[in-house]
């Protein structure tokens, strides 16, 4: 296990290195994006621009600039071109909001996706299965920005059932206020994933349910509940775990930009969108690394869970 974890950690580091390098390359090469000019401000004299170039190493080869940027990222000294504030502080500030959204939504879509997928599979072909299939397709087809705007307007503003956006930290408004503000964002973000997960699991269960080992288990007289739980569901969960790891990592890393924007959560995703809009390279770099970290981390965890679900997969 230790060797496995070490291997995964090295893999993570390599992936993050490649991601950071590619991001830096893309933004370094954008037209009109001279970083020294941007950092020095609109009315800087040539001398001031030159000073910024020296300080940040922009007059040095590409790989040294890349090294400088990485050093500043990991020491927390990375500064936004547009606002001149510390990027890492902004990410730390927004992270609780993004985590609140990601963790709650991921739990909802996992639990509901699995429950509805299993229910659908057990009643394959029945009216309830068809109904759930239609519901799932609707959920998959509805864009988050549209569904979010509708939910905000009708359930939040018009009906007053929920707050129509915003975020209240537990430390300020207490658990209930935090929970109330998160219900709509969780539900809207989870809707898309519930549809996908339930469809994937339904099909996986239907594929597995007639496999030889399942028939063998039944022939041995094992109860149906045990057959479904220990043999069918356990094996059908492997693609779900893979998907969940990727999706959860993505949302945790600030990928739910639209949901954060529609519900005015002002988390890491929102910061990312703001920085992209301003072509502000340092925060874009840092948020991409932040997101990549969670995707790689969740993938590592998924690998471990694989082994627990399927003993045929050896960690070594």
């Amino acid at each position, binding site marked *: 296990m230790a060797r496995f974890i070490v291997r995964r950690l090295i893999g993570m580091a390599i992936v993050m290195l490649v991601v950071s390098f590619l991001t830096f390359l893309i933004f370094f090469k954008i037209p009109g994006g001279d970083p020294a000019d941007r950092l020095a401000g*609109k009315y800087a004299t040539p001398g001031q621009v030159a000073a910024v170039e020296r300080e940040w190493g922009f007059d040095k080869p590409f790989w040294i600039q890349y090294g400088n940027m990485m050093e500043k990222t990991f020491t927390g000294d990375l500064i936004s071109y547009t606002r001149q504030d510390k990027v890492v502080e902004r990410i730390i500030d927004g992270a609780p909001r993004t985590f609140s959204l990601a963790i709650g939504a991921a739990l909802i879509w996992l639990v509901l996706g699995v429950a509805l997928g299993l229910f659908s599979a057990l009643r394959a072909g029945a009216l309830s299965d068809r109904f759930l299939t239609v519901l799932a397709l609707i959920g998959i087809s509805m864009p988050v920005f549209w569904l979010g705007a509708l939910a905000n307007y009708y359930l939040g503003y018009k009906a007053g059932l929920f707050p129509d*956006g915003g975020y209240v930290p537990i430390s300020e408004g207490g658990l209930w206020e935090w929970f109330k503000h998160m219900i709509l964002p969780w539900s809207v973000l989870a809707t898309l994933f519930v549809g996908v997960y339930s469809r994937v699991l339904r099909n996986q269960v239907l594929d597995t349910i007639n496999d030889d080992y399942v028939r063998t288990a039944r022939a041995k007289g094992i109860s149906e509940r045990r057959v479904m739980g220990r043999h069918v569901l356990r094996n059908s969960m492997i693609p779900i775990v893979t998907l969940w790891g990727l999706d959860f990592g993505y949302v945790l890393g600030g990928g739910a930009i639209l949901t954060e924007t529609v519900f005015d959560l002002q988390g890491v995703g929102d910061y990312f969108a703001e920085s992209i809009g301003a072509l502000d390279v340092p925060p874009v770099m840092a948020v991409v690394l932040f997101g990549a970290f969670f995707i790689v981390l969740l993938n590592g965890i998924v690998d471990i869970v694989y082994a627990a679900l399927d003993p045929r997969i050896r960690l070594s």
Partner: protein
Amino acid sequence: MRSTLRTLMGLIAVLVLALGVAGCGGDDGGDEGGATGGGEDQAAVQEGGTATFNYASFPDYLDPAMSYTVAGWQALIPTYTPLLTYRREAGAAGAQLMPGLAEAMPEVTNGGKTYTFKLREGLKYSDGTAVKASDFEHTIKRVITLESGGAPFYVGAIEGAEAYQKAGKAKGDITGIEADEATREITVNLTEASGQFPFIVSMDFGGLVPGDTPFEILTKKPPPGVGQFKITKVEGNRAFTLEKNENFPEIPGLPPAKLDKIQINVVKNAERQVRDVLTNEADYLDDPSAGDALQEFQQQATDRYKEQTTNSTYYYFLNHRTPPFDDEKVRQAVAYAVDERAVVRIYGGLMEPGCNFLPPGMEGHQKVDPCPWGDPGQPPDLEKAKSLIKEAGAEGEKVLVWGNDEDDSRQNAEYLASAMKGIGLDARPKIIEGSVFFTTVGNQRTKAQAGFTNWFQDFPHPGNFLFLVAGDTIQPTNNQNFGNVDDPEINTAIKELNPKELSEASDGYAEIDRKLVERAHVVPYGSKKIPLITSERIAFENVLFHPVLQADYTTFALKEGEQ
């Protein structure tokens, strides 16, 4: 100031005009800058209480040396008072200067090159420390050392400021500023006489801060100031708090704040920003954008909705150095083709159509009536435009219309391209990223033929607009005269008028304005209107919407009985 970039551009060019100007005073200005609030039918209000304001985004900075946006200034103006300020009145009177921390208007000597201010006695910052005459020099040094967007106003204008900047030593000396602590006198020597200098002093960059304020951007912990409010809490980039400053002295014309506290929250969702005010969850929204929610507000809460026309000009530039716009007939054809009614629709009605270059609230504005290119409220004369294009032999000429990816700019570029197509030019829009737009079209190598642009006043002086069309401000890069307008007659008139007091020069500026329009040097189409909305808790009729400073936070008050 460019609304789209938020950080303002072209200030060096302003200084080109500001310098070489003789005369003094300049405390007269504006003709009908604002019509909202402040004065008529004041409602009964209570002293104290807390209000919540929504901002669409966090101000650029909460440091008077750095902030250069409307949102920033609205919060900082009642927090940091400069030596001079504007009368807190609506309409033309609001554009007139009055003493702020200075005891009186400055004494101007040495042919307009020396300004002497005297500080009021017993002034204290919000933290209780005494205000010293030498703090003014420190305040200006911070603006220069921090490379603020406001630095070009002072560098070059004040003797020794450029040398101070070049030396790069924060604690160095600006030789042109002398302070006498005993007499509380501050003497400022200018490199050349400047009638615009009093307006520059009244900008919030000059809001005094203590002499030991560090040379660093202090948004997270703003320095103490002398204002009706003080900033007491800054929460990341999403909220900050203004609290009543109990140390604010009695200054005639600057009444103390009515509210005890203003909590300012960033709410990015455009619909929610407005709805919060409609439902009284927030009490005010800074600069609401047009949309369904604002329309709903207008319909449901007419008694707390007003629009104010800002001192801004929205116009299309046509590059005089690039075909086909080097031909006056083609420029006239475009002026004929633009349908102001369509442009107003782009702004959801928040645009006051007009064909003047100087905005309605500016001294020197005299409505060009009738507009030479047709009534802005009527359909355009396309036949006339087409015939002019034919006469110029410009049919089928290729034109790129430049705009950026921000809301109104993109739609404007697309509209202008379609209007040009309609009269026989082969035009198409060229949309680029907002943060590089003005530097790109301001680079002569780009040869931008036509495009969208706008300007918001920094201070109510025509010079703050006319530098955009003065031939001597044309530069190879960072050019703000995007159309390369270089009319010798207009250039001379601008130079001749600059030294004069505004009241004397008003007709002259109106004449320049008329020539700019009649010669189709630019195609202005209007001035932006800003809606003012408040919750039911606020005494709406008491709120002063100032022609220069916009919403005056010190006039916000809760109605009697509101908690």
